[in-house]
């Protein structure tokens, strides 16, 4: 596997912000023209497979059934989309799919974790798709009060065409883990705009695990509400034949002394398996003492798969603690395979060892036992698909 760690060469300084990477948001659909696919934001996405989410496909209710499991004192409730809590994170749609999803719902699901509450069990929001013929819009707001400690798991399975918004608000000093576990059926399409507001001294771990779906696109954005915020962005994706999985992160460092650390890893197998990762970290002038690192690694297990990886770093201040990015895409290494085989290990077992090892780092850092266990089981299943 080739690796290109890249620190000094990654420091691209510029006086102005490249606005195409993070345009201003608007809640009005009319402000967002129908994308052609040529825009920087959409340039990798096969627009035809979005099923009209980007144009005017009607949304209907009932496409997904949601069940909730929330240990006290956390609460889960439905609130009006006009409730001020939906504007608390500072998120505003920056493209048409998210703007349409925002306007298509009357209510949002609010997960509320009271200040100083410490939950020892995760909160689950389980979404089960009932069919992919009609598009569904969703909206969830996760609010962790100051100094609270909690884990929230958003699960998605079944067949569906979904455009949704997930807003995460971590209060001052909160320690919050949010996991999106995408176990969609093969025909699902999912566009999920996720935004995180990080309070002063808050620590947020956000993870996206993407396995199923015909097309999945998850842009994650991060804002800091005060100094001392610390965000860990994790991603794990496994693309099979014909699947398109796109993940994007945008971290906006506008406050001093905050941290961000992103690690996304993907495995691809089968003809037409396609993944895209675009990372963008912006360090604004005020964000002195920023420490950031973004890393994407892809493992091509078979011929005919393609992974694109684009890390960006925009730095507007010289007073930073550290900034870097790295990206590497490699084939399953023949010499590694030979070494393991030469110790008597059969090929399927050898491949499993290497893929497990590849993802092990993510699962270790994720640290939510139930999710880790299920993700491991899915990875084993995926390996069995191509007889690997």
């Amino acid at each position, binding site marked *: 596997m080739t690796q290109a760690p890249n620190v000094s060469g990654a420091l691209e300084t510029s006086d102005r912000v490249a606005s195409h990477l993070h345009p201003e948001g608007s809640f009005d659909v009319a402000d967002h023209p129908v994308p052609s696919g040529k825009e920087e934001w959409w340039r990798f996405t096969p627009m035809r497979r979005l099923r009209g989410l980007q144009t005017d496909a009607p949304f209907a209710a009932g496409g997904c059934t949601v069940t909730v499991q929330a240990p006290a004192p956390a609460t889960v409730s439905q609130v009006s989309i006009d409730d001020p809590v939906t504007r608390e994170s500072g998120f505003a749609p920056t493209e048409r799919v998210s703007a349409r999803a925002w306007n298509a719902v009357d209510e949002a699901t609010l997960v509320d974790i009271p200040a100083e509450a410490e939950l020892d069990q995760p909160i689950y929001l389980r979404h089960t798709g009932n069919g992919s013929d009609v598009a569904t819009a969703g909206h969830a707001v996760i609010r962790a009060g100051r100094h609270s400690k909690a884990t929230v798991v958003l699960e998605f399975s079944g067949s569906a065409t979904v455009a949704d918004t997930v807003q995460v608000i971590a209060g001052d000093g909160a320690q919050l883990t949010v996991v999106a576990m995408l176990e969609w059926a093969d025909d699902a399409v999912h566009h999920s705009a996720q935004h995180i507001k990080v309070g002063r001294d808050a620590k947020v771990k956000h993870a996206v695990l993407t396995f199923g779906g015909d097309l999945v696109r998850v842009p994650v954005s991060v804002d800091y509400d005060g100094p001392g915020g610390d965000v860990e962005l994790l991603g794990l994706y496994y693309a099979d034949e014909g699947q398109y999985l796109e993940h994007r992160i945008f971290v906006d460092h506008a406050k001093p002394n905050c941290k961000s650390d992103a690690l996304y890893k993907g495995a691809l197998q089968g003809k037409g398996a396609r993944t895209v990762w675009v990372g963008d970290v912006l360090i604004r002038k005020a964000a002195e003492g920023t420490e950031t690192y973004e890393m994407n690694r892809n493992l091509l297990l078979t011929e005919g798969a393609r992974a694109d990886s684009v890390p960006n770093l925009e730095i507007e201040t010289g007073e930073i603690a550290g900034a870097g990015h790295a990206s590497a895409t490699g084939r399953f290494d023949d010499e*590694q395979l*030979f070494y393991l*085989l*030469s110790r008597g*290990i*059969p*090929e399927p077992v050898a491949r499993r*060892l290497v893929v*497990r090892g590849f993802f092990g780092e993510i699962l270790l850092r994720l640290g939510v036992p139930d999710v880790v266990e299920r993700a491991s089981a899915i990875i084993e299943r995926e390996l069995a698909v191509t007889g690997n």
Partner: protein
Amino acid sequence: MATLDIRDLHVDVVTETESKEILKGVDLTVSSGETHAIMGPNGSGKSTLAYSLAGHPKYQVTSGSVTLDGEDVLAMSVDERARAGLFLAMQYPVEVPGVSMSNFLRTAATAVRGEAPAIRTWVKEVKQAMKDLDITEEFADRSVNEGFSGGEKKRHEILQLELLKPKIAVLDETDSGLDVDALRVVSDGVNKYKADSDGGVLLITHYTRILRYIHPDKVHVFAGGKIVESGGPELAEELENNGYLRFTSGKPAAV
């Protein structure tokens, strides 16, 4: 009693653009309890012999035969050869990031032994073998060969030899890059394997130094892709004194 029998082995090295004959008719028999040293100048094809026996896809056997106790080794896949009792300690062991040494060793032992070793005895066995080779315990949690020094890699090759207990072990320049202390530790490991398992050893080396610690029954001089002379330990002494000059068509060889 196991016997590895190599007869008139011809091997091409295959690259993207061409294939070139490297081994030009190798004949050799190694049996349990025997140590054969294969010595030769750089580029003589020693390592090609090692990798061909293990089944590396880069090397293509064009004629000849290799059998282990009468079984056709060349018809076996790489992992089948290892399970049949062949082991190759590599000159350049490969790094496998993300796979812990302990997981790797247990997986290999399970494959070679045909069943998972009982956990309690296994842990003891590994700990003792690591101790014997001066390998500290933290290595069990590290990724296979990742960031290991040359000497650490070689010690881990011998650790695998100890745990997998093959019938015949091929050691490809296991001595290269080792200081004297490490050489002694590694040699002790090989001798222990021989004593415990009555294994046959095919020791491939450029230098005579390791033969002070691992005593060969037979010494073979390898040049131009085949064995050009065989003898007892005294042949090694001659090489020590005179180098490979006599075997390389008069041209001085790099020793």
